[in-house]
């Protein structure tokens, strides 16, 4: 388990670095065009990112929960849901039971929050609570606990903040550029030729940066979904529970009211009504039918069984790190 988390960290770290480079590139371009000082541009990008990160790190879970309109559930409110979360805490060996929240929403969905396993929460919609039986609910909760145990929540927070910073910076930069016709550097037109080329490259970067950042973010998200599914099978020792829950979730078409593009990867399935049937670059989650099929073709419930089932359904390709393919 430890090796697996470590090796996942490595791969995710590479992707996060790419995002970091995008952010710095953006700062560089801004410095070049608006401030006549590259350092200044880099500093602006870094400060925006740092402030957003601090807010997300210390208040991110509260913000997300209050945007979603989640209310905390105690044992007496919903004994079964509470019991299930406690059971999965035991099965995964988490040091502390996560808080349990319910969102009043007819859509069928769930998500996990919290920067570390000691300060985590599991949230389900009331629609999901009503539609699933005990085994299915257990599968969904196990998937969310898997995200907490694998430290996905922190990773997704870091990357979503970076994505947010890139989107905000490039949004303002392109607006300012169009309004002022290219910023201060226009004042000295001694070197009009190279300047114009640089301008175009800069503009292209500003427009494309948010798109690239989003693709990276989604790529990280899809990997983590498979891993959380594998963890859920391991904890419950019953892959069918999650498989059947995913099918129920997939057949409902109600979108989650409080979801947006940045928070989408936090949910167990894509919170928007329109879902891709194929695994494309632009999707936050792997297709539901694919996830259910992998779970159903598992011969046991270990991580190695999940890896083998993925291989059988995907022409021998791998999904989990080497250390788990025994």
């Amino acid at each position, binding site marked *: 388990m430890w090796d697996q988390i470590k090796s996942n960290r490595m791969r995710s770290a590479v992707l996060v670095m790419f995002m970091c480079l995008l952010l710095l590139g953006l700062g560089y371009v801004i410095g070049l065009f608006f401030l006549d000082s590259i350092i200044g541009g880099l500093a602006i990008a870094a400060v925006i990112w740092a402030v957003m990160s601090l807010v997300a790190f210390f208040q991110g879970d509260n913000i997300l929960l209050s945007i979603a309109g989640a209310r905390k559930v105690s044992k007496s409110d919903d004994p079964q849901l509470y019991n299930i979360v*406690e059971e999965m805490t*035991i099965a995964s060996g988490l040091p502390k039971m996560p808080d349990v929240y319910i969102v009043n929403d007819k859509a069928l969905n769930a998500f996990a929050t919290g920067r570390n396993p000691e300060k985590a929460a599991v949230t389900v919609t009331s629609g999901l609570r009503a539609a699933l039986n005990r085994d299915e609910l257990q599968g969904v909760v196990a998937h969310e606990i898997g995200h907490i145990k694998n430290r996905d929540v922190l990773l997704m927070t870091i990357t979503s903040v970076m994505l947010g910073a890139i989107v905000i910076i490039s949004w303002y930069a392109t607006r300012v550029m169009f309004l002022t016709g290219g910023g201060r550097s226009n004042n000295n037109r001694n070197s009009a030729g190279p300047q114009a080329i640089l301008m175009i490259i800069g503009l292209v970067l500003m427009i494309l940066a948010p798109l690239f950042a989003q693709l990276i973010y989604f790529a990280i998200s899809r990997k983590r979904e498979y891993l959380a599914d594998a963890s859920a099978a391991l904890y419950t020792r019953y892959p069918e529970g999650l498989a059947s829950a995913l099918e129920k979730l997939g057949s409902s078409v109600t979108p989650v009211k409080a979801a947006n593009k940045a928070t989408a990867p936090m949910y167990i399935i894509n919170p928007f009504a329109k879902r891709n049937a194929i695994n494309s670059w632009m999707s936050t989650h792997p297709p539901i039918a694919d996830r259910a099929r992998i779970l159903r073709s598992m011969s046991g419930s270990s991580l190695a069984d999940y890896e083998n089932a993925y291989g059988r359904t995907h022409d021998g390709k791998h999904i989990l790190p080497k250390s788990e393919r025994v």
Partner: protein
Amino acid sequence: MAGWIIALVVVGVIVLLGIIFFSMYNGLVGLRNQVKNAWAQIDVQLKRRYDLIPNLVETVKGYAKHEREVFENVTKARNLAQAGASSDTATRGQLEGNLGSALSRLLVVAEAYPDLKANKNFLALQEELTSTENRISFSRQFYNDTVLRYNNKTQMFPSVLIAGMTGFKAETFFEITVPEEKLAPKVSFN
């Protein structure tokens, strides 16, 4: 000059070996503590089951007075399991197994009483019992996984050297043995 280099290399190797030794030793201690923790968790859940049973028996009794034998069996198995809480792992597994099968017989009996099954108190108890059974098996599962990791460390090279020197012994898995599990539960209809 050459003497100095040799001395430095020797010191360096000793320091390196020391670091490897202590990090392996600490790893073993950490795992052994995890095993202890996981065992404590099983204990908590088994106690939860002992506490639940008197309440459950009382509730079922109110509707199914004639099933005295079943109640007595459950209560007896519970008291035996509680009394044997400090015995060795294998014995404990057997006592808990007996309690588990006595309990499932009680639930089979309860199926025959529609009024009882509609009782709110009984439904709540049934959820608690389901959850408790789950907790017991999940904590057992986690304990056994942890024991497996710990035992592997104490038996595999190179950590086996350190485990042997400093007295880390393999732990036993916790199996709940249910002798009558394969037989259908006996239900009397008189």
